[in-house]
């Protein structure tokens, strides 16, 4: 039997065995063996972790006095995920150990001599330097980014929620696709989900579009040579952006109160709202009428969001070469043509990644909705789902978790958002010119 085969089989039996007995690479073999020994010593950690992950606990915390001794399903879930990740790392090093034994064996079979350990380490160090340097960051990513994501996804397939499945008194269990079928099959949830989802998309598109075009319009005006005191106007227009959004939104929600808010009161004083003689017979239900409330949140968001695009686009426009406009003028282009064929393409190319990011941000723009309307007014969806006309997915998730403790449904919604936003952003970034030129 050749050495490659022998070493491979030995290393399969016990990590490092092939290296030590067949290939005579003692240091390497010992390192592999130590990994396996440590893993075997902590065997119970892995078995109980995996078992916990599979069962999510068996001892209930009832009566209350026994709570401290019982299983906490959610902690078992987290520990289970953690031990699976560690187990995965060990399995990878196990496979690497076998491949390494075979590789060295082959070398010996062909009559080459193996580098000694010092030499090997030096080669390894040179070759793997970037990976070694990245290891701490990688560990951080695995435990602080990957693990919470896996945890969140896992929750979507459990029944973790009010009132019967809250740890530590009760156990949580896996329900497979139960939550998904609940969303799809129960008309109450189905209606709400479709309604809120489509409104979220409409909201994200309109919010991004209005902010961008509002910003573009103001930037064009500021750029025009007919406008005097440009700095003054720019300062005025940037103000909404410099006040914390939360404060502005709470102020807006008071100003837009249909009966007591200053906006409707002013309209009333001017006689625009008047029961008998006004253009409008009744108060404008800025926040109380479902459709009006949806328009209101978009308008207020425009107020909050246009200064950002204004500042951005003003900057980009100054970088467009004056010569192009001069050449266009010589060719007899009108102002509209100059805008259509020079300014617009230039700014769009430069800002597409930012527009996409703004879309993603608006998709999850919790503050703009929640602090203005709390998702209300109600009446659009079944009262049991706890959602109002202006609720977008993220505010709905917030209500489901904080008010109702329905963590499983909320996790499922987050998963859906994650898939949509993740997929959309990935696709667009890949197809964006500004990113294509980059190595990324």
């Amino acid at each position: 039997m050749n050495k490659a085969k022998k070493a491979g089989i030995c290393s399969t039996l016990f990590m490092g065995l092939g290296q030590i007995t067949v290939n005579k690479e003692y240091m390497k073999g010992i390192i592999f063996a130590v990994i396996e020994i440590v893993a075997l010593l902590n065997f119970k950690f892995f078995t109980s972790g995996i078992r916990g992950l599979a069962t999510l606990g068996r001892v209930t915390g009832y009566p209350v006095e026994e709570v401290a001794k019982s299983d906490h399903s959610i902690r078992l879930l987290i520990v289970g995920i953690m031990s699976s990740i560690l187990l995965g790392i060990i399995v990878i090093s196990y496979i690497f150990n076998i491949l390494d034994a075979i590789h060295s064996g082959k070398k010996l079979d062909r009559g080459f001599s193996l580098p000694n350990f010092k030499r090997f380490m030096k080669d390894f160090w040179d070759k793997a330097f970037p990976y070694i340097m990245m290891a701490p960051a990688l560990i951080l990513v695995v435990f602080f980014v990957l693990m919470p994501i896996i945890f969140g996804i896992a929750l979507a397939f459990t029944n973790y929620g009010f009132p019967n499945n809250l740890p530590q008194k009760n156990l949580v269990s896996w329900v497979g696709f139960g939550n998904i079928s609940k969303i799809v099959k129960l008309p109450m949830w189905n209606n709400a989900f479709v309604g809120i989802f489509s409104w979220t998309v409409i909201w994200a598109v309109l919010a991004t579009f209005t902010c961008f075009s509002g910003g573009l319009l103001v930037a064009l005006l500021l750029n025009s040579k007919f406008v005097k005191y440009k700095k003054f106007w720019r300062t005025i227009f940037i103000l909404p952006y410099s006040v914390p959004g939360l404060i502005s939104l709470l102020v807006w929600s008071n100003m837009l109160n249909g009966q007591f808010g200053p906006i409707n009161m002013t309209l009333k004083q001017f006689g625009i709202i008047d029961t008998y003689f006004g253009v409008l017979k009744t108060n404008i239900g800025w926040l109380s009428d479902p459709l009006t409330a949806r328009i209101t949140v978009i308008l207020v968001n425009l107020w909050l969001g246009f200064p950002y695009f204004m500042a951005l686009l003003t900057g980009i426009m100054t970088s467009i070469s004056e010569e192009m406009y001069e050449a266009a003028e010589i060719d007899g282009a009108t102002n509209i043509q100059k805008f259509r064929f020079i300014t617009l393409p230039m700014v769009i190319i430069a800002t597409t990644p930012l527009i996409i990011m703004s879309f993603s941000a608006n998709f999850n723009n919790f503050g703009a909705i929640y602090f203005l309307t709390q998702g209300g007014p109600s009446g659009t969806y079944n009262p049991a789902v706890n959602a109002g006309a202006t609720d977008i997915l993220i505010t709905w998730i917030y209500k489901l978790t904080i008010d109702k403790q329905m963590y499983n449904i909320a996790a499922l919604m987050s998963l859906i958002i994650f898939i949509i936003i993740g997929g959309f952003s990935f696709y667009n970034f890949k197809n964006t010119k500004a990113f294509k030129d980059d190595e990324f």
Partner: protein
Amino acid sequence: MKKLTKLVALLMVLVMAVAMLQGCKKDDKDEDKDVATTTTEAAVETETPVETATEEVPDTAVYDAIEDGAVLTVWESGGVDGEFIKEAATQFTEKYGVQVTYEEVGHTETVGKIILDGPAGVGADVYAAPHDKLGEVVANGLALENDIAGFAEKFSEVGIKAGTVDGKNYSYPLQFETYALFYNKDLVATPPTTWDEVIAFAETYNDTANNKFACMWEAGNAYYGFAFLSAAGPLFGAEGTDKNVVLTDTPEAVEAMKYYQTLRTKVYDVPAADTTYDAMMAAFTEGKAAMTLNGPWAIKDCVNAGLNFGIVPFPKLQNGATPLTFSGIRVLHVSAYTKYPNAAKAFAYFCTVDLAQTRYELTGGVPVLKDIEIADEYQAAIAAAGDNAVPMPSIPAMNAYWTVMGGIYTNIWNGNDVEAEMNAATTALKSQIE
């Protein structure tokens, strides 16, 4: 040169790794220091300990059982409520030698926090909470039973009932609140006792164009809304524990809600989304609104505004039916995760029984313990309004009530068909409660 760069990089990574590990290490020393400083702080703050209940020797059995070397942590809101806990902690340490640390955690947030901190072993031993979180507390197994003999007899019935689930008391009641009718004495000569009288008053008083309304309240809020629905009876049965009694499926409930809907046009013609608390308080303190539905938390603001106002019980409903108002009880719970259950129980007992008078003088919260004299006119009025109050049910089904009925009251107020709304409410409630 290349080697040096690598070395520097390696060094940086090592420093980062060490810093990471440091972050994970639990810092025991700091925690000890915390306890010491808080207790000394508390000791400095109270120079003259208030003498209370010295003649009447309390049940020493509660205090005899305190574990040696017990250390307690207490969660309570800031402000006067926190001041009281600091005061109680000082006295408790003085009398029984148990160190008590006070940490500021809003009393509506303690339950959410103990769910995570309790199992992790860093939670409080005693924490304050509104009683209606009790369903959550018991469902999650977060509190130990209050098994102190003769405890219940010392308190008014509403206080004990609020802390009890399935005949077991889990709570130590601190104070009581319910809502009532606040009226401006300059605008209303004799306070109304029925809603019909409110409607009659509104006919002469209301001026919608100038935002003058006879009575203002949060029309879409299920907390106040229940009082109107209560013509159909108490929610979840007489004991507040029968999840099948959702009320909304009875003809009386439809009747009651139809009456509620008429109040929109006759008393307060504003869409529910615009009937905010801020608008209401502004109008009431300005003297534009003659009456509001509000609770003891608003007394201070009204007094500070220099308002000449009074408080009377919630007016009677149509056909003279007596309304039931939701009452809330602030309670202490002993955490199920405490290491010193006896000391924690003793401290909760100390706060609610021995120091009840001190608490009332310090916080002004309407007490639940019997035989405490209430000097303040407004607090006495709230206590009197408590005669027709029912503790907000604390069974898990209550969660469904809050979710569903907020929308239903809003829709009815906004003019939707009452019968259709009540049918929708019944289906939604039943599907949530199961």
